């Protein structure tokens, strides 16, 4: 009878794991076409798909050096970050892309793919800017919110959105292909795509061909595959077997320690309610609603009860008689006593505290005259 729920749980967990693996995005992180974070670019990828562009996100260098798919006019978008060496960049350059978009490229990428373009050290603050160039994509887009790395363009290149010397969007044609250098990667993220003409610029700049490979270079991209042949492995292979044996030993120990000597015994426990709970609750209500008048009258009545008992005053005695008797016994001023016992409700919390203290002192006096 215990097996069935276990079985069901197992099946559900397995199904969940399977679904997760099946639907896991192929890319992640900043500027990823699958990421819905502010720094992701899911919005741009969706926009491109809606305009008939077939977007393929990847984190594998192999996809970037081997353009597959239909047609011979293909675009490769290379995301920021990552580290590829010169050899990998050369492989990308030799792969035969007809249009390459470099988003915030480093020096090595520029040397290989966009000769003449140099990374300038200046940084453009993020604000709306005019294109200031003839690039059709930029002219159509008009004002765009840009900001970020800037690059210096070689003569002959179309350079847009800059401060006059350096620019953030540069298009040049080399070796029979178009290369766009985009410094302002943030303009195309989910966060800023809707601003100004950002979306128009992105569509016109990137969506030139029907096939777009969206490559996000990774840090370990170079040389893991050929690492085995190069040097001694970091982990000796024997350790793997020891780890498996260790895992088995841990399993055995877990079974040894985990088995209980019979089930836990259930028991119906009584409800525990403290008798004073209602009184304490009412005290909190008094406090919350600042019911000083009610509190004061309770304290006064209580003190009067004690005085009645201590002085043998009849229960039905009128206030002046009570005050006279108590004043005679304690030597207090009758007017003040009257105010204390029958006065108006206290006006603030400190007055209530004072009243409580005075009544306390009075009843104590009565007990020890």
């Amino acid at each position, binding site marked *: 009878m215990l097996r069935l729920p276990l079985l069901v749980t197992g099946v559900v967990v397995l199904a969940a794991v399977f679904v997760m693996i099946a639907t896991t995005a192929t890319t992640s992180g900043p500027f990823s076409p699958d990421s819905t974070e502010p720094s992701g670019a899911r919005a741009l990828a969706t926009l491109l798909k809606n305009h008939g562009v077939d977007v393929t996100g990847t984190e594998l260098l192999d996809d970037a050096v081997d353009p597959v798919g239909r047609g011979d006019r293909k675009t490769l978008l290379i995301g920021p970050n990552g580290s590829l060496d010169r050899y990998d960049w050369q492989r990308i350059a030799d792969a035969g892309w007809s249009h390459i978009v470099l988003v915030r490229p480093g020096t090595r990428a520029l040397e290989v793919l966009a000769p003449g373009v140099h990374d300038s050290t200046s940084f453009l603050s993020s604000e709306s800017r005019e294109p200031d160039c003839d690039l059709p994509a930029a002219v159509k887009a008009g004002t765009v919110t840009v900001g970020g790395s800037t690059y210096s363009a070689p003569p002959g290149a179309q350079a847009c959105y800059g401060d006059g010397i350096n620019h953030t969007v540069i298009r040049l044609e080399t070796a029979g292909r178009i290369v766009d250098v985009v410094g302002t990667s943030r303009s195309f993220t989910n966060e800023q795509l809707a601003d100004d003409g950002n979306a128009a610029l992105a569509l016109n700049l990137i969506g030139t061909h029907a096939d777009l490979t969206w490559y996000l270079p990774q840090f370990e991209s170079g040389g893991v595959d050929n690492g085995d042949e190069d040097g001694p492995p970091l982990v000796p292979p024997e350790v793997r077997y020891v780890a498996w044996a260790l895992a088995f030993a841990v399993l055995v120990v877990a079974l040894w320690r985990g088995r209980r*000597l*019979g089930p836990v*015994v259930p028991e119906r426990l009584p409800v525990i309610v403290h008798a004073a709970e209602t009184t304490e609750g009412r005290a909190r209500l008094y406090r919350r609603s600042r019911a000083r008048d009610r509190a004061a009258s309770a304290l006064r009545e209580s003190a009067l009860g004690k005085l009645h008992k201590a002085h043998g005053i009849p229960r039905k005695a009128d206030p002046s008689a009570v005050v006279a008797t108590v004043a005679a016994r304690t030597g207090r001023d009758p007017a003040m006593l009257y105010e204390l016992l029958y006065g108006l409700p206290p006006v603030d919390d400190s007055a209530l505290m004072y009243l409580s203290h005075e009544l306390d002192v009075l009843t104590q006096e009565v007990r020890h005259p």
Partner: protein
Amino acid sequence: MVLTGRAGLLAAAGVVFVAVLMPSWSGVGLVVAVVLVVCLVDMLLAGSPRRLQLSREGDNAVRLGEQAVVQLLVANPGRRVKGLLRDAWPPSAGVQDPPHRLDLPHGERRRLVTHLVPTRRGDRQAYRVTVRSIGPLGFAGRQGSHQVPWTVRALPPFNSRKHLPSRLARLRELDGRTALLVRGQGTEFDSLRDYVPGDDVRSIDWRATARRGNVVLRTWRPERDRQVAIVIDSGRMSAGRVGDAPRLDHAMDAALLLAALATRAGDRVSLLACDSAVRADVRRPAPEDVLPSFVNALANVEAELVQTDFRVVVSQVLERLGQRSLVVLLTGLDPAVIEESLLPVIGPLLRRHVIVLASVADPRLIELEATRADLTEVYGAASAARTRLDRERVTAILTRAGATVVDEPPDQIAPALADTYLALKKAGRL
């Protein structure tokens, strides 16, 4: 199937084996196979826990706070069973022993003793007996459970019985053994005796004096064979905790002391525990049977979180009491409940019987009213004062209506109720 530490050690040795001698898949496979085979063989060789024959004997009832001893007889018709045996009880049964070690060769019997100190009133049922039988190699074994039913009833502790001797002494003073000279309501004629200087002259029986020639007195003694009905409210008013036990438990304590005292005074005591329905009902047991029957009836009564229906209480009491009797109602003094539920229906009881209403006061309220260091505490003191004033108001109403109210803290309620009973008896109001 259970594994032991030895199986873990064997697997750990396997790790060393793989690391040093056979760092390969076959090494790992060999270790796994050896451990599995050894454990499997050991498990098959272990004696079957299910074939054991178990039975119980021992205590059926114990006073709360004292120790019960329950014995478990284990007979083994099969292969030798060596390992552990756990006699499982609910936590509040208070099992004192760790799991028993068991080494039972074929055909032998053992007597295992489980000590219980229950922590709560009521029936505690044995849950299951689990036996773990380890194989001869000590690597693995089998485990199985048996149902061996047994019930230990934890009875109300009757802590207030320490007050009984002093109250019995007071009872003897006003009982027939010290004859009364004053005739009053609720007394009956006891005997005649000679006048001694100092005796009340009003007690002289002139007719007997004339007959005998010397002065003779009449003596009286309190009436006997009165009926006392103890009614315990087991509704929500008795559920609140005062100190470390619910009001209900303090009320039971007081009820037991009163029952013991009244029985010794020659009165007939009956018991009713009631909320929306009757939970315990003992009608006029034989004098020597009063305490055992009360304690047994009360053992399983728990406070229900419902409002007590006093119409049920009144009709039940009226139904079982013929002559004028003492009705002791142990309940709470909640002003709203008393005014709305009890007062409208208690009229018939008040007219026909003597009513004592006993309630356990909460010392926490006194403490709450006395501490007034900051604003929160002042509001607490005001609230506690209001509660006390309300209780005093209700007490006054009940007293005016003719009932006697006993409102005392938990440690005082039982002797106070006994004293009230003695006072009523002395005044001849029964």
